[in-house]
Protein backbone atom coordinates (compact mmCIF):
# COMPACT_ATOMS: atom_id res chain seq x y z
CA UNK A 1 0.00 0.00 0.00
CA UNK A 2 2.82 2.37 -0.70
CA UNK A 3 0.66 4.32 -3.07
CA UNK A 4 -1.77 5.06 -0.29
CA UNK A 5 0.94 6.30 1.99
CA UNK A 6 2.37 8.44 -0.77
CA UNK A 7 -0.91 9.97 -1.66
CA UNK A 8 -1.61 11.10 1.88
CA UNK A 9 -0.90 14.79 1.49
CA UNK A 10 -0.41 15.45 5.17
CA UNK A 11 3.22 15.59 6.20
CA UNK A 12 4.13 13.27 9.02
CA UNK A 13 6.25 15.85 10.81
CA UNK A 14 4.29 18.51 12.59
CA UNK A 15 6.88 21.21 12.32
CA UNK A 16 9.16 21.23 9.31
CA UNK A 17 11.81 23.85 9.86
CA UNK A 18 9.95 27.06 10.61
CA UNK A 19 6.75 25.74 9.11
CA UNK A 20 3.70 24.47 10.93
CA UNK A 21 1.08 22.58 9.04
CA UNK A 22 -2.45 22.48 10.35
CA UNK A 23 -5.49 20.76 8.99
CA UNK A 24 -8.56 22.97 8.58
CA UNK A 25 -11.31 20.43 8.27
CA UNK A 26 -13.04 18.06 7.86
CA UNK A 27 -13.86 18.41 11.55
CA UNK A 28 -13.28 22.06 12.14
CA UNK A 29 -15.71 24.88 12.83
CA UNK A 30 -14.26 26.81 9.90
CA UNK A 31 -14.73 24.22 7.17
CA UNK A 32 -17.47 22.22 5.62
CA UNK A 33 -17.08 18.59 4.62
CA UNK A 34 -13.78 19.57 3.22
CA UNK A 35 -10.20 19.87 4.27
CA UNK A 36 -7.59 22.48 3.57
CA UNK A 37 -4.09 21.61 4.62
CA UNK A 38 -2.54 24.91 5.56
CA UNK A 39 1.21 25.24 5.93
CA UNK A 40 2.02 28.22 8.08
CA UNK A 41 5.14 30.28 8.26
CA UNK A 42 4.53 32.36 11.34
CA UNK A 43 1.05 33.70 10.80
CA UNK A 44 1.39 33.68 7.01
CA UNK A 45 0.07 30.84 4.90
CA UNK A 46 2.89 29.56 2.72
CA UNK A 47 0.93 26.78 1.11
CA UNK A 48 -2.67 25.61 1.09
CA UNK A 49 -3.73 22.27 -0.35
CA UNK A 50 -7.45 21.60 -0.78
CA UNK A 51 -8.55 18.05 -0.12
CA UNK A 52 -12.11 17.45 -1.33
CA UNK A 53 -13.95 14.19 -1.63
CA UNK A 54 -15.36 13.59 1.82
CA UNK A 55 -18.94 13.68 0.53
CA UNK A 56 -18.41 12.25 -2.92
CA UNK A 57 -21.39 10.11 -3.90
CA UNK A 58 -20.84 9.57 -7.58
CA UNK A 59 -23.86 11.47 -8.83
CA UNK A 60 -22.62 11.20 -12.42
CA UNK A 61 -22.51 7.43 -12.22
CA UNK A 62 -25.86 7.21 -10.47
CA UNK A 63 -27.43 9.23 -13.28
CA UNK A 64 -26.74 6.41 -15.71
CA UNK A 65 -29.12 4.07 -13.88
CA UNK A 66 -32.14 6.33 -13.65
CA UNK A 67 -34.65 7.75 -16.05
CA UNK A 68 -34.29 11.30 -17.21
CA UNK A 69 -36.98 12.42 -14.78
CA UNK A 70 -35.93 10.19 -11.93
CA UNK A 71 -32.59 11.95 -11.91
CA UNK A 72 -34.22 15.17 -10.79
CA UNK A 73 -34.68 14.36 -7.08
CA UNK A 74 -31.23 12.83 -6.95
CA UNK A 75 -29.31 15.61 -8.68
CA UNK A 76 -30.92 18.41 -6.72
CA UNK A 77 -29.54 16.94 -3.52
CA UNK A 78 -26.03 18.00 -4.41
CA UNK A 79 -26.82 21.54 -3.33
CA UNK A 80 -29.65 21.72 -0.88
CA UNK A 81 -29.85 25.50 -0.53
CA UNK A 82 -29.93 25.91 -4.30
CA UNK A 83 -31.98 22.88 -5.32
CA UNK A 84 -33.92 24.56 -8.11
CA UNK A 85 -30.91 26.40 -9.49
CA UNK A 86 -28.77 23.31 -9.62
CA UNK A 87 -31.32 21.24 -11.55
CA UNK A 88 -32.24 23.98 -14.02
CA UNK A 89 -29.56 23.34 -16.69
CA UNK A 90 -30.15 19.59 -16.51
CA UNK A 91 -33.77 20.23 -17.41
CA UNK A 92 -32.72 22.49 -20.27
CA UNK A 93 -30.27 19.91 -21.60
CA UNK A 94 -32.81 17.11 -21.41
CA UNK A 95 -35.42 19.25 -23.12
CA UNK A 96 -32.93 20.03 -25.85
CA UNK A 97 -32.23 16.32 -26.29
CA UNK A 98 -35.91 15.45 -26.33
CA UNK A 99 -36.72 18.31 -28.62
CA UNK A 100 -39.45 19.78 -26.47
CA UNK A 101 -40.00 23.27 -25.23
CA UNK A 102 -41.60 24.27 -21.95
CA UNK A 103 -44.66 26.53 -22.18
CA UNK A 104 -43.98 30.23 -21.47
CA UNK A 105 -45.73 30.16 -18.14
CA UNK A 106 -43.55 27.27 -17.02
CA UNK A 107 -40.46 29.23 -17.99
CA UNK A 108 -41.50 32.07 -15.71
CA UNK A 109 -42.31 29.61 -12.95
CA UNK A 110 -38.81 28.24 -13.31
CA UNK A 111 -37.33 31.70 -13.05
CA UNK A 112 -39.32 32.36 -9.88
CA UNK A 113 -38.25 29.14 -8.22
CA UNK A 114 -34.63 29.52 -9.27
CA UNK A 115 -34.42 33.09 -8.05
CA UNK A 116 -36.04 32.20 -4.74
CA UNK A 117 -33.38 29.57 -4.34
CA UNK A 118 -30.71 32.07 -5.23
CA UNK A 119 -31.89 34.31 -2.40
CA UNK A 120 -31.97 31.41 0.03
CA UNK A 121 -28.52 30.28 -1.01
CA UNK A 122 -27.04 33.76 -0.74
CA UNK A 123 -28.65 34.26 2.67
CA UNK A 124 -27.17 30.99 3.83
CA UNK A 125 -23.83 32.12 2.51
CA UNK A 126 -24.18 35.45 4.25
CA UNK A 127 -24.97 33.81 7.56
CA UNK A 128 -21.95 31.56 7.44
CA UNK A 129 -19.76 34.37 6.18
CA UNK A 130 -20.88 36.46 9.15
CA UNK A 131 -20.05 33.80 11.67
CA UNK A 132 -16.75 33.02 9.97
CA UNK A 133 -15.80 36.62 10.59
CA UNK A 134 -17.03 36.27 14.18
CA UNK A 135 -20.15 38.36 13.67
CA UNK A 136 -22.82 36.39 15.50
CA UNK A 137 -25.72 38.67 14.57
CA UNK A 138 -24.94 38.34 10.89
CA UNK A 139 -25.24 34.61 11.36
CA UNK A 140 -28.71 34.63 12.85
CA UNK A 141 -30.31 37.49 10.95
CA UNK A 142 -29.91 35.95 7.49
CA UNK A 143 -30.77 32.54 8.88
CA UNK A 144 -33.94 34.00 10.35
CA UNK A 145 -34.92 36.05 7.33
CA UNK A 146 -34.19 33.05 5.16
CA UNK A 147 -37.33 31.63 6.69
CA UNK A 148 -39.39 34.06 4.60
CA UNK A 149 -38.04 32.63 1.38
CA UNK A 150 -38.11 29.04 2.56
CA UNK A 151 -41.76 29.67 3.24
CA UNK A 152 -42.23 30.98 -0.29
CA UNK A 153 -40.43 27.97 -1.77
CA UNK A 154 -42.68 25.73 0.25
CA UNK A 155 -45.70 27.61 -1.02
CA UNK A 156 -44.57 27.06 -4.59
CA UNK A 157 -42.90 23.68 -4.52
CA UNK A 158 -44.38 21.91 -1.53
CA UNK A 159 -41.19 21.33 0.44
CA UNK A 160 -38.68 23.64 1.91
CA UNK A 161 -35.44 22.36 0.43
CA UNK A 162 -35.83 19.79 -2.32
CA UNK A 163 -39.10 20.51 -4.09
CA UNK A 164 -38.27 18.66 -7.35
CA UNK A 165 -40.27 21.48 -8.81
CA UNK A 166 -38.97 21.89 -12.34
CA UNK A 167 -39.06 18.87 -14.59
CA UNK A 168 -38.48 18.31 -18.32
CA UNK A 169 -41.45 19.82 -20.07
CA UNK A 170 -42.45 22.43 -17.55
CA UNK A 171 -43.06 22.84 -13.87
CA UNK A 172 -44.87 20.51 -11.52
CA UNK A 173 -47.62 22.84 -10.41
CA UNK A 174 -48.88 26.37 -10.77
CA UNK A 175 -48.37 29.17 -8.30
CA UNK A 176 -50.91 29.18 -5.49
CA UNK A 177 -53.28 32.14 -5.43
CA UNK A 178 -51.80 33.76 -2.37
CA UNK A 179 -48.23 33.63 -3.63
CA UNK A 180 -48.16 37.15 -5.00
CA UNK A 181 -49.40 38.82 -1.82
CA UNK A 182 -47.12 36.73 0.30
CA UNK A 183 -44.11 37.42 -1.88
CA UNK A 184 -44.67 41.16 -2.09
CA UNK A 185 -45.07 41.37 1.68
CA UNK A 186 -41.88 39.39 2.22
CA UNK A 187 -39.94 41.43 -0.33
CA UNK A 188 -41.09 44.70 1.21
CA UNK A 189 -39.89 43.57 4.60
CA UNK A 190 -36.65 42.18 3.28
CA UNK A 191 -35.74 45.24 1.24
CA UNK A 192 -35.94 47.29 4.41
CA UNK A 193 -33.92 44.67 6.23
CA UNK A 194 -31.17 44.82 3.60
CA UNK A 195 -30.44 48.38 4.73
CA UNK A 196 -29.93 47.11 8.25
CA UNK A 197 -27.67 44.34 6.97
CA UNK A 198 -25.62 47.03 5.31
CA UNK A 199 -25.41 49.11 8.47
CA UNK A 200 -24.49 46.30 10.82
CA UNK A 201 -22.24 44.27 8.55
CA UNK A 202 -21.27 45.51 5.11
CA UNK A 203 -20.59 49.08 6.24
CA UNK A 204 -19.23 48.11 9.63
CA UNK A 205 -15.66 49.44 9.58
CA UNK A 206 -14.32 46.40 11.37
CA UNK A 207 -15.80 44.14 8.69
CA UNK A 208 -14.28 46.38 6.04
CA UNK A 209 -10.91 46.03 7.75
CA UNK A 210 -11.30 42.26 7.74
CA UNK A 211 -12.44 41.91 4.14
CA UNK A 212 -11.08 44.77 2.03
CA UNK A 213 -7.83 43.95 0.32
CA UNK A 214 -8.01 40.35 1.53
CA UNK A 215 -7.77 37.55 -0.99
CA UNK A 216 -7.52 39.76 -4.06
CA UNK A 217 -8.34 37.96 -7.29
CA UNK A 218 -7.30 40.00 -10.29
CA UNK A 219 -9.39 40.21 -13.41
CA UNK A 220 -6.98 38.31 -15.66
CA UNK A 221 -6.40 35.62 -13.03
CA UNK A 222 -10.10 35.13 -12.57
CA UNK A 223 -10.50 34.40 -16.27
CA UNK A 224 -7.49 32.12 -16.50
CA UNK A 225 -8.47 30.13 -13.43
CA UNK A 226 -11.97 29.65 -14.75
CA UNK A 227 -13.59 31.28 -11.72
CA UNK A 228 -17.29 31.74 -12.17
CA UNK A 229 -20.35 33.34 -10.70
CA UNK A 230 -20.32 36.10 -8.11
CA UNK A 231 -16.60 35.55 -7.62
CA UNK A 232 -15.97 36.43 -11.25
CA UNK A 233 -18.20 39.48 -11.01
CA UNK A 234 -16.36 40.48 -7.86
CA UNK A 235 -13.23 40.73 -9.99
CA UNK A 236 -14.69 43.39 -12.22
CA UNK A 237 -16.23 41.26 -14.96
CA UNK A 238 -19.87 41.79 -15.80
CA UNK A 239 -20.46 38.23 -16.86
CA UNK A 240 -23.60 36.36 -15.98
CA UNK A 241 -25.16 33.53 -17.93
CA UNK A 242 -28.54 35.17 -17.47
CA UNK A 243 -27.26 38.01 -19.66
CA UNK A 244 -24.62 36.25 -21.73
CA UNK A 245 -26.80 33.48 -23.01
CA UNK A 246 -30.35 34.27 -21.89
CA UNK A 247 -32.27 31.11 -21.21
CA UNK A 248 -35.85 30.59 -20.16
CA UNK A 249 -37.37 34.08 -20.26
CA UNK A 250 -34.57 36.10 -18.74
CA UNK A 251 -34.28 38.27 -21.83
CA UNK A 252 -37.73 39.71 -21.17
CA UNK A 253 -36.83 40.82 -17.66
CA UNK A 254 -35.11 44.01 -16.68
CA UNK A 255 -32.34 43.53 -14.17
CA UNK A 256 -28.79 44.55 -13.51
CA UNK A 257 -25.67 42.49 -12.93
CA UNK A 258 -23.78 43.82 -9.91
CA UNK A 259 -20.05 43.93 -10.41
CA UNK A 260 -17.19 45.27 -8.33
CA UNK A 261 -13.68 45.85 -9.61
CA UNK A 262 -11.79 45.21 -6.37
CA UNK A 263 -11.65 41.42 -6.48
CA UNK A 264 -11.36 41.06 -2.71
CA UNK A 265 -13.57 39.32 -0.17
CA UNK A 266 -15.59 42.49 0.31
CA UNK A 267 -16.31 42.82 -3.41
CA UNK A 268 -17.42 39.21 -3.67
CA UNK A 269 -19.68 39.76 -0.69
CA UNK A 270 -21.15 42.96 -2.09
CA UNK A 271 -21.94 41.23 -5.38
CA UNK A 272 -24.01 38.68 -3.53
CA UNK A 273 -25.54 41.35 -1.35
CA UNK A 274 -26.79 43.22 -4.42
CA UNK A 275 -27.93 40.03 -6.08
CA UNK A 276 -30.30 39.53 -3.17
CA UNK A 277 -31.98 42.77 -4.19
CA UNK A 278 -32.00 42.03 -7.91
CA UNK A 279 -33.39 38.53 -7.46
CA UNK A 280 -36.38 40.03 -5.69
CA UNK A 281 -36.86 42.48 -8.56
CA UNK A 282 -36.72 39.60 -11.04
CA UNK A 283 -39.37 37.65 -9.17
CA UNK A 284 -41.61 40.72 -8.96
CA UNK A 285 -41.37 41.24 -12.73
CA UNK A 286 -41.81 37.55 -13.48
CA UNK A 287 -44.99 37.38 -11.44
CA UNK A 288 -46.32 40.40 -13.34
CA UNK A 289 -45.27 39.29 -16.81
CA UNK A 290 -46.29 35.66 -16.45
CA UNK A 291 -48.82 34.75 -19.13
CA UNK A 292 -51.69 32.48 -18.30
CA UNK A 293 -51.87 29.12 -20.03
CA UNK A 294 -50.39 25.69 -19.62
CA UNK A 295 -47.34 25.20 -17.47
CA UNK A 296 -46.56 21.61 -18.21
CA UNK A 297 -46.32 19.65 -21.41
CA UNK A 298 -47.99 16.26 -21.53
CA UNK A 299 -44.79 14.32 -21.28
CA UNK A 300 -45.01 10.70 -20.10
CA UNK A 301 -42.79 11.10 -17.11
CA UNK A 302 -41.41 7.64 -16.64
CA UNK A 303 -41.03 6.40 -20.16
CA UNK A 304 -39.84 9.58 -21.84
CA UNK A 305 -37.06 8.70 -24.26
CA UNK A 306 -34.52 11.01 -25.76
CA UNK A 307 -33.09 10.44 -29.25
CA UNK A 308 -29.39 9.75 -29.42
CA UNK A 309 -27.32 12.87 -29.21
CA UNK A 310 -25.66 15.18 -26.78
CA UNK A 311 -26.45 18.55 -25.30
CA UNK A 312 -24.65 21.13 -23.22
CA UNK A 313 -26.74 23.55 -21.23
CA UNK A 314 -25.79 26.09 -18.66
CA UNK A 315 -27.55 28.45 -16.34
CA UNK A 316 -26.54 30.82 -13.62
CA UNK A 317 -26.98 29.01 -10.35
CA UNK A 318 -26.45 30.81 -7.07
CA UNK A 319 -22.76 29.95 -6.96
CA UNK A 320 -22.02 30.56 -10.59
CA UNK A 321 -22.34 29.07 -14.03
CA UNK A 322 -23.79 25.61 -13.69
CA UNK A 323 -23.57 23.39 -16.74
CA UNK A 324 -24.56 19.88 -17.67
CA UNK A 325 -23.33 17.77 -20.53
CA UNK A 326 -25.87 15.05 -21.24
CA UNK A 327 -25.31 12.23 -23.74
CA UNK A 328 -28.20 10.05 -24.74
CA UNK A 329 -28.09 6.77 -26.64
CA UNK A 330 -31.78 6.64 -27.44
CA UNK A 331 -33.00 4.87 -24.33
CA UNK A 332 -34.98 6.28 -21.45
CA UNK A 333 -31.85 6.63 -19.36
CA UNK A 334 -28.99 9.02 -20.05
CA UNK A 335 -25.78 7.45 -21.29
CA UNK A 336 -23.56 9.97 -19.57
CA UNK A 337 -24.26 13.02 -17.47
CA UNK A 338 -21.44 15.36 -16.68
CA UNK A 339 -22.21 17.70 -13.82
CA UNK A 340 -19.96 20.73 -13.99
CA UNK A 341 -20.62 22.59 -10.79
CA UNK A 342 -19.47 26.13 -10.01
CA UNK A 343 -18.02 25.12 -6.64
CA UNK A 344 -15.68 22.65 -8.30
CA UNK A 345 -14.59 25.33 -10.73
CA UNK A 346 -14.07 27.85 -7.93
CA UNK A 347 -12.07 25.43 -5.82
CA UNK A 348 -8.91 26.27 -7.73
CA UNK A 349 -9.17 29.74 -6.24
CA UNK A 350 -8.82 28.46 -2.68
CA UNK A 351 -5.14 27.45 -2.74
CA UNK A 352 -4.39 30.35 -5.02
CA UNK A 353 -5.92 33.04 -2.82
CA UNK A 354 -4.94 31.63 0.55
CA UNK A 355 -1.27 31.68 -0.27
CA UNK A 356 0.39 34.66 1.35
CA UNK A 357 -2.57 35.52 3.54
CA UNK A 358 -2.92 35.38 7.29
CA UNK A 359 -4.21 32.35 9.11
CA UNK A 360 -7.13 34.45 10.32
CA UNK A 361 -8.08 35.13 6.72
CA UNK A 362 -8.43 31.46 5.84
CA UNK A 363 -12.12 31.16 6.74
CA UNK A 364 -12.89 34.57 5.28
CA UNK A 365 -11.32 33.82 1.90
CA UNK A 366 -12.54 30.25 1.83
CA UNK A 367 -16.12 31.21 2.42
CA UNK A 368 -16.04 34.37 0.31
CA UNK A 369 -15.68 32.01 -2.66
CA UNK A 370 -18.92 30.33 -1.52
CA UNK A 371 -17.42 26.89 -1.89
CA UNK A 372 -20.04 24.25 -1.20
CA UNK A 373 -18.24 20.94 -0.60
CA UNK A 374 -21.25 18.73 -1.29
CA UNK A 375 -21.77 20.43 -4.62
CA UNK A 376 -18.13 20.15 -5.64
CA UNK A 377 -17.84 16.51 -4.64
CA UNK A 378 -21.04 15.56 -6.46
Amino acid at each position, binding site marked *: MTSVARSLPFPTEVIVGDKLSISIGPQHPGSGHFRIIVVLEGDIVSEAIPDPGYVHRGAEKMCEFRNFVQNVPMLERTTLPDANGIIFPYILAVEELMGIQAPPRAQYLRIISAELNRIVSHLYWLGIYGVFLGHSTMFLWPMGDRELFMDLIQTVGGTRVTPSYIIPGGARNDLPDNFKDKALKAFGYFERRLKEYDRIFFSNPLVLKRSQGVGVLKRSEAIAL*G*ITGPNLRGSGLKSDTRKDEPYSMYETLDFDIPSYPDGDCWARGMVRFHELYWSMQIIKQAVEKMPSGPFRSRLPLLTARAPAGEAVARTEAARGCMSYYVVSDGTSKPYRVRVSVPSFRNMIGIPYLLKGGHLADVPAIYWSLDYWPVEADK
Partner: protein
Amino acid sequence: MSTSLTGEQGLADAVKAAFGDKVVGIKSKSKRVKITVDKDILPDVARFIRDNLDFDHLISVDGTDYPKDNTIELIYHITSIEKEEQRKYILSLATKLPRDSPVSPSLIQVWPAAEYHERETFEMLGVTFTGHPKLEKLLLPDDWLDIPPLRKEFRLPGR
Protein backbone atom coordinates in the same frame (compact mmCIF):
# COMPACT_ATOMS: atom_id res chain seq x y z
CA MET B 1 -5.11 36.57 -37.27
CA SER B 2 -7.96 38.86 -36.48
CA THR B 3 -11.23 37.09 -36.45
CA SER B 4 -14.39 38.54 -37.81
CA LEU B 5 -16.60 35.64 -37.06
CA THR B 6 -20.21 35.30 -37.75
CA GLY B 7 -21.96 32.68 -35.76
CA GLU B 8 -21.16 29.09 -35.09
CA GLN B 9 -20.21 28.36 -38.67
CA GLY B 10 -17.58 31.09 -38.60
CA LEU B 11 -15.92 29.54 -35.58
CA ALA B 12 -15.93 26.14 -37.18
CA ASP B 13 -14.53 27.54 -40.40
CA ALA B 14 -11.72 29.33 -38.59
CA VAL B 15 -10.57 26.12 -36.97
CA LYS B 16 -10.97 24.25 -40.22
CA ALA B 17 -8.94 26.83 -42.09
CA ALA B 18 -6.09 26.71 -39.61
CA PHE B 19 -5.78 22.96 -39.21
CA GLY B 20 -7.29 21.58 -42.35
CA ASP B 21 -7.65 17.86 -42.54
CA LYS B 22 -6.32 17.17 -39.10
CA VAL B 23 -9.69 18.20 -37.72
CA VAL B 24 -11.64 14.98 -37.58
CA GLY B 25 -15.10 16.38 -37.34
CA ILE B 26 -17.05 19.53 -36.65
CA LYS B 27 -20.61 19.60 -35.39
CA SER B 28 -22.43 22.79 -34.77
CA LYS B 29 -25.87 23.72 -33.62
CA SER B 30 -27.33 26.80 -32.03
CA LYS B 31 -24.63 28.41 -29.88
CA ARG B 32 -22.70 25.16 -29.63
CA VAL B 33 -19.71 24.05 -31.67
CA LYS B 34 -18.04 20.72 -31.24
CA ILE B 35 -14.64 20.20 -32.79
CA THR B 36 -13.11 16.75 -32.76
CA VAL B 37 -9.40 16.64 -33.39
CA ASP B 38 -6.58 14.18 -33.24
CA LYS B 39 -4.94 14.06 -29.82
CA ASP B 40 -1.50 14.99 -31.22
CA ILE B 41 -2.62 18.44 -32.26
CA LEU B 42 -4.85 18.96 -29.21
CA PRO B 43 -2.52 21.51 -27.53
CA ASP B 44 -2.06 23.38 -30.80
CA VAL B 45 -5.76 23.62 -31.44
CA ALA B 46 -6.31 24.64 -27.85
CA ARG B 47 -3.76 27.41 -28.13
CA PHE B 48 -5.30 28.53 -31.39
CA ILE B 49 -8.75 28.60 -29.86
CA ARG B 50 -7.55 30.53 -26.87
CA ASP B 51 -5.33 33.07 -28.61
CA ASN B 52 -7.07 33.64 -31.92
CA LEU B 53 -10.68 32.91 -31.12
CA ASP B 54 -10.57 34.27 -27.54
CA PHE B 55 -12.09 31.24 -25.90
CA ASP B 56 -10.39 31.76 -22.57
CA HIS B 57 -12.75 30.40 -19.95
CA LEU B 58 -12.77 26.67 -19.33
CA ILE B 59 -16.10 25.30 -18.17
CA SER B 60 -15.29 21.66 -17.69
CA VAL B 61 -13.26 18.70 -18.82
CA ASP B 62 -15.10 15.46 -19.15
CA GLY B 63 -14.88 12.13 -20.79
CA THR B 64 -17.33 9.57 -22.01
CA ASP B 65 -16.57 5.91 -22.21
CA TYR B 66 -17.70 4.11 -25.40
CA PRO B 67 -16.85 0.42 -24.97
CA LYS B 68 -18.44 -0.41 -28.33
CA ASP B 69 -16.00 1.77 -30.26
CA ASN B 70 -13.22 0.98 -27.81
CA THR B 71 -12.68 4.71 -27.31
CA ILE B 72 -12.90 7.29 -24.59
CA GLU B 73 -14.01 10.65 -25.81
CA LEU B 74 -12.34 13.49 -23.96
CA ILE B 75 -14.07 16.86 -24.20
CA TYR B 76 -13.05 20.31 -23.08
CA HIS B 77 -15.93 22.78 -22.87
CA ILE B 78 -14.72 26.32 -23.29
CA THR B 79 -16.43 29.65 -23.42
CA SER B 80 -15.30 33.22 -23.80
CA ILE B 81 -15.34 35.97 -21.23
CA GLU B 82 -13.25 38.78 -22.68
CA LYS B 83 -15.23 38.98 -25.92
CA GLU B 84 -18.74 39.88 -24.93
CA GLU B 85 -20.39 38.94 -28.21
CA GLN B 86 -18.80 35.49 -28.00
CA ARG B 87 -19.95 34.71 -24.48
CA LYS B 88 -23.02 32.90 -25.66
CA TYR B 89 -21.05 30.15 -27.40
CA ILE B 90 -19.80 26.99 -25.81
CA LEU B 91 -17.02 25.42 -27.82
CA SER B 92 -16.39 21.74 -27.21
CA LEU B 93 -12.94 20.51 -28.07
CA ALA B 94 -13.02 16.73 -28.28
CA THR B 95 -10.54 14.02 -28.94
CA LYS B 96 -10.84 10.25 -29.12
CA LEU B 97 -8.48 8.17 -27.05
CA PRO B 98 -7.96 4.41 -27.21
CA ARG B 99 -9.66 2.74 -24.32
CA ASP B 100 -6.74 0.47 -23.40
CA SER B 101 -4.17 3.21 -22.88
CA PRO B 102 -5.86 6.59 -22.77
CA VAL B 103 -3.06 9.14 -22.73
CA SER B 104 -3.58 12.74 -23.65
CA PRO B 105 -1.46 15.87 -23.38
CA SER B 106 -2.50 18.04 -20.48
CA LEU B 107 -3.92 21.43 -21.40
CA ILE B 108 -3.08 22.96 -18.04
CA GLN B 109 -0.60 25.26 -19.79
CA VAL B 110 -3.35 26.62 -22.00
CA TRP B 111 -6.12 26.87 -19.45
CA PRO B 112 -4.81 26.72 -15.85
CA ALA B 113 -8.37 26.04 -14.77
CA ALA B 114 -8.04 22.52 -16.17
CA GLU B 115 -5.98 21.38 -13.18
CA TYR B 116 -8.68 19.86 -11.00
CA HIS B 117 -10.91 18.87 -13.91
CA GLU B 118 -8.12 16.80 -15.40
CA ARG B 119 -7.38 15.24 -12.05
CA GLU B 120 -11.03 14.27 -11.76
CA THR B 121 -11.05 12.81 -15.28
CA PHE B 122 -7.87 10.90 -14.43
CA GLU B 123 -9.39 9.15 -11.44
CA MET B 124 -12.89 8.74 -12.83
CA LEU B 125 -12.00 7.50 -16.32
CA GLY B 126 -8.37 6.55 -16.04
CA VAL B 127 -7.17 9.04 -18.62
CA THR B 128 -3.53 9.95 -18.09
CA PHE B 129 -2.58 13.53 -18.84
CA THR B 130 1.05 13.98 -19.73
CA GLY B 131 2.52 17.14 -18.36
CA HIS B 132 0.12 17.52 -15.47
CA PRO B 133 2.10 18.55 -12.37
CA LYS B 134 0.11 16.59 -9.81
CA LEU B 135 -1.92 13.76 -11.25
CA GLU B 136 -3.31 12.23 -8.06
CA LYS B 137 -6.61 11.13 -6.64
CA LEU B 138 -8.92 13.99 -5.85
CA LEU B 139 -12.42 12.90 -4.97
CA LEU B 140 -12.08 9.15 -4.60
CA PRO B 141 -10.82 7.64 -1.37
CA ASP B 142 -7.08 7.21 -1.08
CA ASP B 143 -7.43 3.45 -0.84
CA TRP B 144 -9.56 3.10 -3.98
CA LEU B 145 -8.23 0.03 -5.79
CA ASP B 146 -11.13 -0.67 -8.13
CA ILE B 147 -11.30 0.33 -11.79
CA PRO B 148 -12.11 3.97 -12.59
CA PRO B 149 -15.80 4.27 -11.72
CA LEU B 150 -17.06 6.08 -14.79
CA ARG B 151 -15.94 3.26 -17.09
CA LYS B 152 -18.97 1.42 -18.35
CA GLU B 153 -17.92 -1.95 -16.98
CA PHE B 154 -18.01 -0.56 -13.46
CA ARG B 155 -21.44 -1.59 -12.24
CA LEU B 156 -23.19 -0.26 -9.21
CA PRO B 157 -24.08 -3.02 -6.77
CA GLY B 158 -27.62 -4.19 -7.32
CA ARG B 159 -28.13 -2.44 -10.66
